[in-house]
């Protein structure tokens, strides 16, 4: 699936449920647009989390809510406040990384 982001007018490949397929196509403008669709206004704190998620994904480390809670950036509680209802799902979507697969 191809999705065009209005503001930036870039075409990026996304999965069926809207996750970027190539994380290198991501930029902050795109993040803002995805966040707006979800109903989240991004702050610096959001970007700290987003950058952490991107770094760990690049390092091929699996992400869990527990791991983010131990990152020193936010507690799990704060992660929920930043990304209500879908702390890892929404933050991953906004960060332009694949949908986190829950462990089996």
């Amino acid at each position, binding site marked *: 699936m191809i999705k065009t982001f209005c503001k930036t007018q870039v075409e990026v490949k996304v999965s069926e449920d809207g996750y970027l397929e190539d994380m290198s196509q991501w930029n902050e403008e795109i993040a803002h647009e995805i966040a707006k669709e979800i109903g989240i206004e991004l702050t610096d704190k959001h970007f700290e989390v987003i950058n952490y998620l991107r770094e760990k994904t690049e390092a091929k480390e699996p992400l869990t*809510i*527990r*791991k983010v809670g131990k990152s020193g950036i936010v507690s799990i*509680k704060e*992660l*929920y406040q930043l990304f209500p209802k879908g702390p890892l799902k929404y933050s991953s979507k906004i960060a332009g990384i694949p949908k986190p697969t829950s462990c*089996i």
Partner: protein
Amino acid sequence: MKNLLILGAGTSGTMMANHLISKLPKKEWSITVIDQFKTHYYQPGFLFLPFDIYTTKQVKKKGEKFIPKGANYIQKKIELIQPDENKVILEGGRVLDYDILIVATGTKIAPGEIEGMDGPMWYKNIFDFYTYEGAKALRNKLREWEGGKLVVHITEMPIKCPVAPLEFAFLADSFFKNKGMRDKVDITYVTPLGGAFTKPKATEALHHLLEEKGIKEVTDFNIERVDYENNKIIDYAETEVKYDLLVTVPTNMGDELIERSGMGDDLNYIPTDKATLQTKDHENIFAIGDATNLPASKAGSVAHFEAEILTENILRYIKGEPLRAEFDGHANCFIETGNGKALLIDFNYTHEPVEGTFPLPGIGPLKLLKESRTNHMGKMAFRWIYWNMLIKGRHIPFVSTNMTEKGKHFETLEK
């Protein structure tokens, strides 16, 4: 004389000892198994113990009985692994040197990770059924419980045997029906996942079963704490679920030994190559079963398939040959659905559970992803297979180590 040490005499450790004893030349290799506990539990039986389907005697035996003659068995707590010095230190200070180490220390529940869980109401109206003690205490509770809100709950993934909590909910439905009190019990299934299971196709089938049995689902629930004074669980999004009886699967973590030895991830699981089972940091240390961080189910069937590949890889490692990178994440689980029926699922790293027949393509007799009495008989027969074949390292006829795609109805293949 060279030393091969196996840490842990559970399903994986016992299987490895039995596989290797006949394969390693006795004059060159000494095999030692170390475990702190005397009893070997048939862990799948913990699901049945609370409902008085199995007795306590059916789920435990003396562990030493299953360690092959010719292997040394030490019943002692392990204090530390020193991977850079190839040493294992036991409680009391005894030091064992090894040439090859197999870590099979499993996973256990850590109810202390969630505030209020193992507080004053632990084993009063909050129970686990992943330990012998928990399953037995829950059995005693269920014998006299008069009904109310039963909440079956998963704390966080990964957990050992991810289908067990669902099976528990299904069996509870049957149990209360048979007691003639189903109308007095409200069953709710609470999970941190987006649905009933981790794989979409099976989730769909299981969701229908939950609905059919009148079991409510609460999904995406990430527990923050148990409010044991007001009998409710609360998640990070402030959602609350009330209970009269809470049956929870607490956070699962690898053994503290792994943390003490500095060898684990944030849940004390050992980073392990998912195809060869060699640990990522030390080439003469291998890990198997629940102790690894593999993205496969933490289940006896997985350990069984891993054991066959690990045995070959140990032999290759000794000969200096390249390891076989072939473990595919194969898991095979019966799912009890109550009323004497069960489902069967067969899947691996890349293929989700689908419909079809097992183990013989096109014939069965077991049906995949479909409820049947034959599947239930299979699950019941498995206890005998476990004690008499599986942990003794005997091959189970027709069941292959890698998953077969024959006789299965694949629509789409994941990447």
